[in-house]
């Protein structure tokens, strides 16, 4: 089976996010009022071959934890979707 995976990597809560803070500071000048709690992150997309959804999840989670995110400061969230065909 083949799955589409999307991993979102964000700084852990409590870790300073200078990128998000800079974006947030720029917003009023652009006319966007009432927007706050901006956090910057990254998104990765890939496809996984696995026997079933649980195996795909295990593989993608390990990949996210070992490479895509640095667990010391970041956390990741995974979304999986079965690809048709």
């Amino acid at each position: 089976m083949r799955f589409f995976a999307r991993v979102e990597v964000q700084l852990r809560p409590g870790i300073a996010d200078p990128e998000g803070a800079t974006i947030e500071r720029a917003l009023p000048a652009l006319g966007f009022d009432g927007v706050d709690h901006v956090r910057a992150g990254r998104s990765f997309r890939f496809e996984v071959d696995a026997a079933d959804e649980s195996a795909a999840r295990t593989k993608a989670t390990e990949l996210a934890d070992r490479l895509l995110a640095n667990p010391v400061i970041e956390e990741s969230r995974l979304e999986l979707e079965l690809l048709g065909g």
Partner: protein
Amino acid sequence: MAPRIGVVVFPGTNCEHDVVLATERLGGRGELLWHGDTGLGAVDAVVLPGGFAHGDYLRPGALARFSPIMDAVIRFAREGGPVVGICNGFQVLTEAGLLPGALQKNGRLRFLCQPTRLRVTSTASVLTGLAELGEELVIPINHFSGSYTCDAETLRALQDGDRILLRYTDNPNGSVDDIAGIANEAGNVVGLMPHPERASDALLGSEDGLVLLRSLLGAATARAAA
């Protein structure tokens, strides 16, 4: 015999020749090691120099830690061999798990390239062994992701274990506890953001990095003799 310092070159490393030159001026022998090699040869110490290993893609150090030579570097470190990561090399060491914590983007999201004043706050390491406690050194930094961060428990372990070697006197990047350089528990693995090799000649504006490099050569000589 002159101690042999292996200087690891990743694709994108750009400070290797500076480290070799500074090493050789102090009477050591510098040897470039390619990241794709699986062995270190007969070196007595290893330096991971500054630059942008693998283009800093993903995160600084994130891909370099999977380079083939890193298994040998990790083995060498576990056997007590002196290993020093400068700037990008520090980032690689944290990503590889040889040092705790992580280097985050600088506080005000600025690339910083400037001399910094550092205070030596521990001499219990291969890089600060010959320095004096409390001594101030002017050594340049050159980085975008140099803000050291770690959880409270790790910070306590670093403080209680006398493992914070260098602190900024005027913290430029937002590092916790003004940290510019740390060591592992045994003191043989060191990471620092400032570049001692860029403060190794009066022509460069400072010779304050020499005491650190001399300490490393001393540790390498001791290991060669052992």
